[in-house]
């Protein structure tokens, strides 16, 4: 079993894949914006950087993608780390001045947002962390993706047209740290922005309540053989139907 030294303390690797995982386990705070324990690391925001002292290429490295290997020595809060993090968060503030997570983190890192923001031509909250892209990909729809590069880089549906592959699962909403993704219900339709997606909501055959996006139900059935809406019932009505069936089985004659 290997050991990693973090901030002068030797800790066992114990199945952790990255330095970030170990730091989290050991209660050492490292700021992150593009990491989610359920999704593959991507190394986009660079805020999680640490300073490698030995055991790997010395210098700054993103801890979320830095493999935890035996003999690695890292420091998570050196002046160099602090300085670089400040630069990074300042850049993010410039890009997404309205994103609360960015503002909060800036404050935590001792960076004051400029009183007067130079209004970007197209303000956005998106910090290009790519969490939504990875979430969409792992669900199996890949309705959205990164497009263009450099200053034009953007997360969008192909050709900027309504995301046809969107299942309405809203995993992107769950993982987006900035609130850039918003789904709203209008009638029996679920609309997702900025993906320009629109999906139909399935109606419960018994009570008529809208309970799940139709494409999601179909996708789960097709891909995982998981038919959670087989009887076309919402969870509530399904529970009732199950209870009734159960009662009938174990207490025959109890009904009516």
């Amino acid at each position: 079993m290997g050991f990693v030294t973090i901030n002068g303390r030797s800790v066992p690797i114990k199945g952790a894949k990255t330095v970030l995982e170990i730091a989290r386990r050991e209660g050492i705070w490292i700021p992150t914006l593009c990491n989610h324990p359920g999704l593959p690391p991507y190394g986009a925001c660079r805020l999680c950087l640490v300073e490698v002292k030995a055991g790997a290429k010395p210098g700054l490295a993103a801890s979320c993608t830095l493999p935890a290997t035996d003999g690695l020595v890292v420091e998570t809060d050196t002046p160099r780390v602090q300085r670089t993090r400040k630069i990074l968060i300042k850049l993010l503030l410039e890009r997404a001045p309205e994103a609360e997570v960015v503002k909060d983190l800036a404050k935590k890192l001792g960076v004051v947002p400029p009183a007067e923001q130079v209004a970007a031509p197209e303000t956005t909250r998106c910090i290009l962390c790519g969490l939504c892209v990875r979430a969409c990909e792992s669900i199996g729809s890949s309705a959205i993706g990164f497009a263009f590069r450099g200053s034009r880089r953007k997360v969008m549906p192909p050709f900027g047209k309504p995301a046809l592959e969107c299942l309405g699962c809203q995993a992107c909403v769950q993982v987006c740290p900035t609130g850039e993704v918003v789904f709203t219900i209008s009638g029996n339709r679920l609309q997702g922005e900025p993906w320009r997606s629109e999906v139909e909501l399935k109606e419960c055959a018994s009570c008529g309540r809208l309970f799940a996006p139709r494409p999601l139900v179909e996708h789960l059935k097709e891909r995982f053989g998981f038919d959670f809406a087989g009887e076309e019932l919402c969870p509530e009505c399904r529970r009732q139907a199950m209870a009734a069936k159960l009662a009938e089985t174990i207490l025959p004659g109890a009904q009516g």
Partner: protein
Amino acid sequence: MNDVDVRRIVASHPDPEGRLLSVLEAIQQRWRYLPEEVLRDVAQELQIPLSRVYGVATFYAAFSLEPRGKHLISVCHGTACHVKGAGQFTERLEKALGIREGETTEDGLFTLEAVRCLGCCSLSPVIRIDGTTYGRVRPEQIPEIVAQWRGGKGDD
């Protein structure tokens, strides 16, 4: 007809390594740009998400998602050519063709673009039209060069 061509192109690039990129290159060669319907066919044929195809297609400056003219005029704006007045050439060409950089002439004959170093700095300033490279070119030569290509140069 589109999808027959796409299928043929995909079939001729069986190596999974870097497949999407070579397929897109072949498509750009065949249509001179990457038409939307064709990219949709590519995603289907390669069985990969359209968002990935779109991501790669928009990442590389060498790909165009807009129709391009029959001849592509690339003005080098790399460091060496910039120093030798690349801006002037773009301006002259814009005037001669009646379009701006990045646009295509109405007759579909020319597209004008600016590129970074073409890799032959010793010849700077450099202009390339399709496969023909013009080195140490002088601004006064522009009208004549354009006239040659209008007159059918490179048509065989």
